[in-house]
């Protein structure tokens, strides 16, 4: 896998921004004194550039990523903290703090139980379950036809992926082939959904670190995609559009123009975000070396998706176990190096661009034909046929009253959701309802990995780390 040619290596160039000019502060005597010295003695020598950028708060020029020893210490390559956790120690030393479940930066109802030694976090325990609604139990009472209405409510930021994972699992038990157009529509919608989900991540990551305007930009650009979803499926979220057997309907007239519009608007938006973030010293300082997770920790904790790729693990289910014909399209898997919040930002921004490229390829190569399988035991007949054919009427009636039966067996089918590996484990006993349905949701693992990323870091980094893990609490609690 490591020699796959279609891979952007983690060498993201630091932006070559000109260092900002020194602050003009005529009131400061020291600055004036320095300028005098500069004019008298060092003008024209090598120190001149350094002196020009020197302000009251130190040198203000950009540093190359990783070139600063302080950053290296912070990234974990050099250990300077010699604190040893002692269970027997006096509890007065540590302060217990509960963050959440109503804290606005926990992206829902996540609660963190923190043990603080001054400003440093010594232990974290994520406490979840505030949004648990027993969806896995509900799934056992719904037929396979109704099942996708249930799963789509788990990860409400990427409902298309939830529906696709469920449909693929049911189809693997049924052993049906989906027509090419149906598969292409699925890829189109899921990749658009990946973009919209990453846009929400960009919006929240920005606003959690103080770039409140990012909130507006992210949600503004996501709206273009949601409008298209509403036009196609009738709803902005919880679509129930991708169903076992294909998709619910064909794409609306004029969808090509809509997609063109989305691609150009979102691509323009993404370059705005890069302008906003890449050279921003505050954003760089608050993300570089923060929330580090190593590849070994990722594997052991089941951390997948952009988080694992930011740590340098070259693993994307779209490449490893292709589904719905995604292998027909050409795209790259961006990788990071350090596994910190900054690398996750770079990886996700690049994933938006790659997904837009997939969407463009789908637009150019959309095959003609059926959008769902013509097996009438699984998908209902067209409305017109019901008036003409008794058999079609019976099929329609049976499907909508009792659903279809699925052969006994068990399956685990996984896809690459915007957050990581989204798996669906279904046990069928040969009837219309699943005997057991279990969703392996990436946010669950990422919340579990928060202690590994936060321990021995500062309280101020909690918010940046949670935002970079991009948890959806509906996905965690189910």
């Amino acid at each position, binding site marked *: 896998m490591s020699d796959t040619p279609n891979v952007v290596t983690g060498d993201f160039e630091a932006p070559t921004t000109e260092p900002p000019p020194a602050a003009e502060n005529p009131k400061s005597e020291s600055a004036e004194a320095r300028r005098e010295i500069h004019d008298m003695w060092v003008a024209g020598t090598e120190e001149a550039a350094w002196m020009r950028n020197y302000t009251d708060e130190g040198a203000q020029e950009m540093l190359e990523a990783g070139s600063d020893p302080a950053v290296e210490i912070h990234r974990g390559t050099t250990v300077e903290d010699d604190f040893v956790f002692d269970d027997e120690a006096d509890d007065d030393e540590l302060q217990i703090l509960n963050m959440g479940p109503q804290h606005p930066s926990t992206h829902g109802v996540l609660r963190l139980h923190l043990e603080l030694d001054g400003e440093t976090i010594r232990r974290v325990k994520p406490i979840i*379950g505030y949004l648990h609604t027993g969806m896995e139990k509900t799934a056992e009472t719904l037929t396979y036809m109704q099942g996708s209405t249930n799963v789509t409510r788990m990860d409400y930021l990427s409902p298309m992926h939830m529906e696709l994972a469920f449909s693929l699992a049911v189809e693997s038990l049924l052993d049906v082939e989906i027509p090419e157009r149906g598969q292409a529509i699925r890829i189109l919608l899921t990749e658009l959904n990946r973009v919209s989900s990453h846009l929400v991540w960009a919006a929240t990551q920005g606003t959690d670190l103080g770039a409140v305007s990012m909130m507006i930009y992210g949600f503004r650009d996501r709206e273009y995609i949601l409008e298209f979803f509403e036009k196609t499926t009738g709803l902005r979220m919880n679509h129930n559009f991708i169903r076992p057997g294909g998709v619910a309907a064909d794409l609306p007239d004029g969808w090509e123009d809509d997609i063109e519009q989305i691609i150009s608007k979102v691509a323009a938006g993404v370059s705005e975000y890069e302008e906003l973030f890449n050279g921003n010293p505050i954003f760089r300082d608050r993300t570089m070396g923060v929330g580090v997770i190593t590849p070994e920790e990722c594997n052991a904790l089941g951390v997948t998706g952009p988080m694992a790729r930011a740590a340098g693990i070259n693993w994307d289910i779209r490449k490893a176990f292709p589904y719905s014909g995604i292998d027909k399209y050409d795209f790259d898997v961006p990788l990071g190096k350090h596994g910190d919040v900054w690398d996750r930002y770079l990886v996700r921004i690049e994933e938006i661009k790659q997904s837009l490229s997939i969407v463009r390829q789908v637009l150019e190569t959309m095959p003609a034909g059926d959008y769902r399988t013509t097996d009438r035991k699984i998908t209902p007949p067209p409305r017109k046929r019901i008036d003409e054919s008794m058999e079609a009427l019976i099929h329609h009636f049976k499907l909508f009253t009792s659903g279809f039966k699925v052969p006994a067996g068990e399956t685990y089918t996984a896809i690459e959701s915007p957050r990581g590996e989204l798996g669906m484990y279904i046990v069928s006993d040969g009837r219309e309802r699943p005997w057991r349905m279990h969703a392996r949701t990436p946010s669950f693992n990422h*919340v579990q990995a928060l202690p590994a990323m936060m321990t021995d870091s500062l309280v101020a980094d909690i918010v940046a780390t949670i935002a970079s893990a991009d948890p959806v609490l509906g996905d965690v609690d189910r």
Partner: protein
Amino acid sequence: MSESTMNDTVFEPLANAFPDVKFEQVLNSKQDVATVPSEQYLDFVIAARTAGFETFADLCGVDYLRRDPRFEVVLNLVSHTHVRRLRIRVGVPGSNPLVSSVTGVFPGANFYEREAFDLFGILFEGHPDLTRIVLPDDWEGHPLRKDYSVGSVPVRFKESPKAQ
């Protein structure tokens, strides 16, 4: 539907080391499943990790109610080197639902085993913190068991004289 995977280079060493483990390939040979006796479960998981299945994916419980053993714990592992998945199934008796914990091998199983304990009442021996995770601590019963009914809340409609 099932066939032997004995001549598979990835699984051959595992199959030779664990003769009691039943390997099969299901769903058009796309998914690899190993059914493991519960006393060899932990050893097999360690051996599977050594054989290249280094990434933890998923763990969940299943209740088969009238089957013996009643419960099953299903563990999914991924190998990045072989680009394959392995599903490990282990039966857990209903009378004494106790099985080894794999948190020592894969720390990622921690939350999943707590979830299986919470929703099925399966006990994991050696788990560092086996407490309820998604339900409140004072909840009674284990809702995903098949003998736990879905339940309902009586709703009284305003205009209906019948509903009481």
